[in-house]
């Protein structure tokens, strides 16, 4: 395992000027002393990122994650320490940075490509591919100033990914274009991962991290809190948020937007000391649990959650999320409807999520539990809540067993009506 990015004790100091004096006269008037405050955006950050790994940098706004990324990219020089980057590096900090509105898309591809370190020959070779990926075949000779903002970022993204770097830095730019283009972008990122390229992604969305990162570095106020596997790191991140009085807004993925109330995406305040409901444990329950530590695919299983209510509360919701060991979300649902409006008095209680038939196939799965109040504020999280293993006695492969019948019509035999139904 070789190290692709070695961050060695990097610190970065910013000077915050109360009033920026940029002209000579202003500086003279103030005797060369401009009042400023020192602010350490990064403090002694060290990390090693192995080649081929995808690392996420997670943290709240202003925690220094973008500064760290810029130091890796070489846009900012660290005040102390150094970063050693092995291999060609491309940074996607802003899509289409440096596009000249007056030039055509064609000229901009060459200009932007060479800014990102591509040689003319390489751009020549990939030109058609870049244009096709951005879906701008018709407009490539138009001036970029006539492009829509969507076309603009699409072109920016496709130039950036055409670099095929050994190390790719991405800063919150994956959410560009329409949904279809976003999927193309994610595909390209995953292709990069398969190729064994090193990727560093900055985001404040834990769910994106879970989807694509091997490891996640959690930052807080310029310092590294932890570097761990995605699930573990996200748990630490959430704990930190809850500790400091902020909890992530419900549904950062915006999977079901209806649930998100005003200020979606913004952290929702919760005071730790007043945590009304505390999750104690989650335990899987299934048949013959004393003689085996797994269930067979298709058997029933339930997850029992014990909780403690500290203060009377109403309208709580429990949420279960099933994940694979690689942190891909398989299933998410809530208790909405079941106990809605049910007042909970102080004391201990339990909730049970029962699956009549667990159709997941082979593997070890994680269940995480969340409890929220009626306003969507996260009261507590169990991540991971519990694990369970599923063994698949059948032949099917993959993640989920879906009911299926196979019918084969030998050549010459009259076609059976149910074949059509099966094909549907």
């Amino acid at each position, binding site marked *: 395992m070789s190290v692709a990015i070695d961050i060695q004790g990097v610190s970065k100091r910013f000077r915050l000027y109360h009033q920026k004096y940029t002209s000579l006269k202003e500086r003279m008037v103030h005797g060369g002393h401009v009042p400023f405050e020192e602010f350490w955006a990064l403090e002694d950050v060290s990390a090693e990122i192995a080649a081929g790994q995808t690392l996420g940098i997670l943290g709240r706004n202003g925690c220094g994650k973008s500064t760290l990324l810029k130091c890796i990219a070489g*846009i900012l020089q660290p005040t102390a320490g150094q970063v050693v*980057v092995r291999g060609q590096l491309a940074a996607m900090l802003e899509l289409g940075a440096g596009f000249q509105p007056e030039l055509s898309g064609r000229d901009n591809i060459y200009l932007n490509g060479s800014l990102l370190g591509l040689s003319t020959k390489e751009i020549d070779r990939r030109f058609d591919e870049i244009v096709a990926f951005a879906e701008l075949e018709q407009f490539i000779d138009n001036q970029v100033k006539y492009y829509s903002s969507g076309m603009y970022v699409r072109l920016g993204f496709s130039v950036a990914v055409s670099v095929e770097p050994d190390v790719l830095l991405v800063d919150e730019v994956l959410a560009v274009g329409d949904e279809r283009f976003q999927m193309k972008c994610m595909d390209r990122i995953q292709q990069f991962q398969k190729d064994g390229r090193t990727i560093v992604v900055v985001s404040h969305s834990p769910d994106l991290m879970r989807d694509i990162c091997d490891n996640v570095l959690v930052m807080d106020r310029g310092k590294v809190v932890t570097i761990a596997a995605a699930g573990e790191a996200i748990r630490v991140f959430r704990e930190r948020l809850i500790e400091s009085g902020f909890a992530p807004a419900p549904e950062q993925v915006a999977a079901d937007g209806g649930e998100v109330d005003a200020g979606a995406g913004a952290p929702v305040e919760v005071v730790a000391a007043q945590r009304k409901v*505390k*999750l104690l444990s989650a335990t899987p329950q299934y048949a013959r649990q004393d003689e085996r530590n797994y269930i067979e695919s298709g058997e029933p299983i339930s997850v029992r959650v014990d909780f403690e209510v500290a203060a009377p509360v109403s309208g709580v919701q429990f949420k279960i999320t099933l994940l694979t060991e690689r942190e891909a979300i398989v299933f998410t649902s809530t208790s909405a409807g079941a106990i809605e409006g049910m007042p909970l008095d102080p004391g201990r209680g339990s909730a049970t999520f029962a699956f009549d038939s667990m159709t997941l196939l082979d593997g070890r799965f994680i269940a995480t539990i969340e409890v929220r109040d009626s306003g969507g504020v996260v009261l507590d999280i169990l991540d991971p809540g519990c694990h369970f293993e599923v063994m698949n006695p059948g032949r099917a492969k993959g993640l989920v067993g879906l009911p299926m019948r196979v019918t084969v019509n030998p050549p010459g035999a009259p076609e059976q009506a149910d074949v059509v139904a099966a094909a549907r």
Partner: protein
Amino acid sequence: MTTTSEAGLSGAVETLDKPRHAPAGPVPTVRSDEDLPYRVVSSQVRLRARLADIWGSHELFVFLVRKELKVKYKSSVLGLLWSMLNPAVVLMVYYVVFKYVLKNPTPDFALYLFSGLLVWNLFSTVLPGSSSTIVANAGIVKKVAFPREILPLSQVGTGAVFLFFQTIVMALFLLGFQYSPDWTYTPVALFALVDLLVLTSACAIFLSAVNVYYRDVEHLVGVLLQAWFWGIPVVYNFNLVYVELLKHHLHWLLGLYLVDPVTPLILAFQRFFYGQVSVSNIPGYAHYQVLAGYPYHFFLEMLAAVLVASVLLLLGALRVFSRIEGNFAEEL
């Protein structure tokens, strides 16, 4: 497995306390058994590494120069032809004015004037442009990593392209007047061209960096250039100054005048393009000296001195640039 949030937090602290380098201890920080190039981002990068970086971006340089030209003549019908029309018209005007209106003892004064202007135009258009280039390109400086020296250098490149077009115009006029440059001085002119490019690059790199911190610089440069123009022998004859200063025993002032690194370049260009050192058939003058009557080797010595000075200036400028470049992204 009771994982309450308290327990989870203590887990976080545990991971925090673990020394980060421990698991990666046996892996050396930079492995030499791999042929991948590596790059160090730090506040101290050696000059050689920087120069290699700059050279590695020469294609970017070409694209930036091309961009400058394209943007300058965007949606104009004549396009690049303007860069030749402009000096041609100026040269025409000079010719008419100094031939018929402002009579001047210097024969073919327009050609004399223009051969000096070739040098000065490059110098005086590149410096204001490059002073503001980092600020003007804040968008890419803040978001893309590339050797930023390329930005002022591409201004020099653009200036060089214009110099090339102006030289073509000059050549056409020389042809039109059936006027032959002094071909023996071709090496001197080429040497002067090299000096000019190095000197301009040094100034451009220095000014572009300093202007990020003191935005006065771009305005100051404009004013200084106006004054400087009259300190060099473009409009008047070098000989005039020379004789006058010696007459008044102002040797130190003459020394100062000659220290100006642009002056030898102008003299060299004039010597090559214009070539008439002295003229004897001017009415009212027994022997009118137009150009400095320096011998060939003295030109080479002057230019060598300018080259040494320019290279030193360039190294100094690169050093200043690299010292303050690390904070460009936050200052802009």
